[in-house]
């Protein structure tokens, strides 16, 4: 078995004692196939018993051991030390707590804010079966119906996406990717009865429309869940339920309308149509500065050649949608 000495640089912080976080270095003889969690356990058992982290199943199921390894949020129990060596080269492997959550101690973070958001956005199923009939009556979900939410059901709430999310990094009140994913999962479960209510909750301030679509959540999901697809589907659902009055929804509507009317985006009035008159006033100073540099968009957007064809497509699509709805 291939074996070598590997250096680890681990974030240490006990807010009750330490004025500032610091890093400890450890050298561990590691063999190929060993995981980061095995190393953490080894250090705790043999080198530094005070080192604090959270872990349980050791098999990528419980989601409790997520940390940042070389700057990227992942499960310690499924991350191979040798894979990280390939990334870090001669540098020590860096282990740090997840971002966007308060550190309780060392690598252990407080996940209560995530749990509170799950609670306040009804992240559970509200079945059509009355409670008194629970256990007596089945509500069968077909394989095809489950396929829609199959991947989203794999979420183990490890909070890696919470840690990687761009918007979470600048607004701790933001709803966060795992809560949006749960909302998608529940709203598309055929047993669910309160989808509309939940959608109202998740589209409130700091909610669904604040996602920057940076796709960091998707890239770093330990279960490879296409989280953005769930967020997209929730936004589609907002339009289907005619919950399209928010700035985010109005912004999306502008793209739809402008392609029909001009073929291109009419950038000049985009802020006005998204934010309204009052919301756009604050943009006037920037618009003036841009005008000096001749960067302001044209007042009248030139229609693309053949715009009639595009309008015909829209008419036919609207007819198709009307036929679908009536059937």
């Amino acid at each position, binding site marked *: 078995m291939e074996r070598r000495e590997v250096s680890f640089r681990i974030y240490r912080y006990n807010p009750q004692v330490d004025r500032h976080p610091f890093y400890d270095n450890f050298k561990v003889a590691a063999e190929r196939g060993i995981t980061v969690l095995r190393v953490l356990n080894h250090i705790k058992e043999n080198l530094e018993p005070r080192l604090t982290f959270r872990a349980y199943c050791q098999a990528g199921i419980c989601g409790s051991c997520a940390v940042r390894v070389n700057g990227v949020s992942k499960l310690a129990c499924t991350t191979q030390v040798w894979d990280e060596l390939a990334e870090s080269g001669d540098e020590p492997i860096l282990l740090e707590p997840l971002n966007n959550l308060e550190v309780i101690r060392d690598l252990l973070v407080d996940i209560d804010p995530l749990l509170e958001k799950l609670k306040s956005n009804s992240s559970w199923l509200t079945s059509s079966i009355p409670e008194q009939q629970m256990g007596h009556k089945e509500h069968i979900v077909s394989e095809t119906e489950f396929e829609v939410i199959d991947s989203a059901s794999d979420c183990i709430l490890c909070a890696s996406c919470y840690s990687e999310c761009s918007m979470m990094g600048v607004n701790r009140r933001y709803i966060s990717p795992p809560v949006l994913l749960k909302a998608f999962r529940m709203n598309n479960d055929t047993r669910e009865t309160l989808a509309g209510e939940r959608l109202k909750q998740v589209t409130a301030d700091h909610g669904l429309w604040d996602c920057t679509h940076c796709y960091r959540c*998707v890239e770093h999901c330990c279960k490879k869940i296409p989280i953005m697809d769930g967020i997209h589907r929730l936004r589609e659902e907002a339009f289907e339920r005619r919950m399209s009055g928010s700035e985010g929804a109005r912004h999306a509507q502008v793209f739809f309308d402008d392609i029909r009317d001009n073929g291109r985006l009419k950038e000049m009035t985009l802020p006005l149509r998204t934010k309204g008159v009052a919301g756009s006033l604050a943009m006037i100073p920037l618009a003036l500065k841009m005008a000096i540099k001749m960067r302001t968009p044209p007042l009248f957007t030139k229609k693309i050649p053949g715009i009639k064809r595009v309008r015909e497509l829209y008419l036919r699509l609207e007819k198709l949608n009307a036929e679908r709805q009536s059937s």
Partner: protein
Amino acid sequence: MKYAYFLSCINESMTKEVDRSLERWDKDLDIELVKLTRGTCCGGSNLDYVSPDHFLVVNGRNIAMAEQMKLDLVTSCNTCLLTLRRAKHILDNSPGKRELVNSFLLDEGLCYTGCSDVKHLLWVITEDYGLDRLAKMVTTPLSGISFAPFYGCHILRPSSLLGKDNPSAPMSLDRLIETLGGTPVEYPSKNKCCGFHTLLVAERESLTLTGNAIEDAIRSEADYIVTPCPLCHTAMDAYQLKAMKGRGAARRIPVLHLSQLIGLALGHSQHELGIDRHMIT
């Protein structure tokens, strides 16, 4: 080399200098970019929320026009890239959706088959053209100038749809900078979000993202930021003063487009490349 060139709305309005500097590639590099003038806006990661079918038909049509010209489709905007590639991925993997889209395109004599690839300009120059070949074309090496490469999200993530660079440690733009004689700096924000897409919805948060990236680049002592995306450019250039307000940064940092970076190394002046149109110069 010849490509169908997708016209991004922002380059048609606010960042006109991008297409202006690209028009020189035909003569300079023998890369002909045929403008897709009848193409529409891609919907910028927004159209599909209003109607997923419109999103597929509109972008199926855009790609089918490139197919009709027997050319790959190239874009200079990260979000157009991702939006078009998302549509392509769905159409290539769903015969039902492809049939639906084609039933709409038939009247215009178009048919989506999936034979044209959708690429970013950065990929064209680093992969199709090749950096070795580009190095030979450099007349004014960017020696002694350091650049903070800012990739932007939609050329990196999701890697399942893009997959050229490692999203955690992208290098293609760094290598391009080196090829042109410049020095790329390492800094933590190179693969982060510029905040553009929520500027009109969550301005304070978006500007914090923009400011974080700019501050990082300034701290790395880069002379310029360089980005392959006109949306990232707008966030970091037009909104720079607003984003940096109250941060006490020592200086401003100009932001270049990928096409301008290449133009400079090929000997064109700042005026020719429209760099003097930028807000931060």
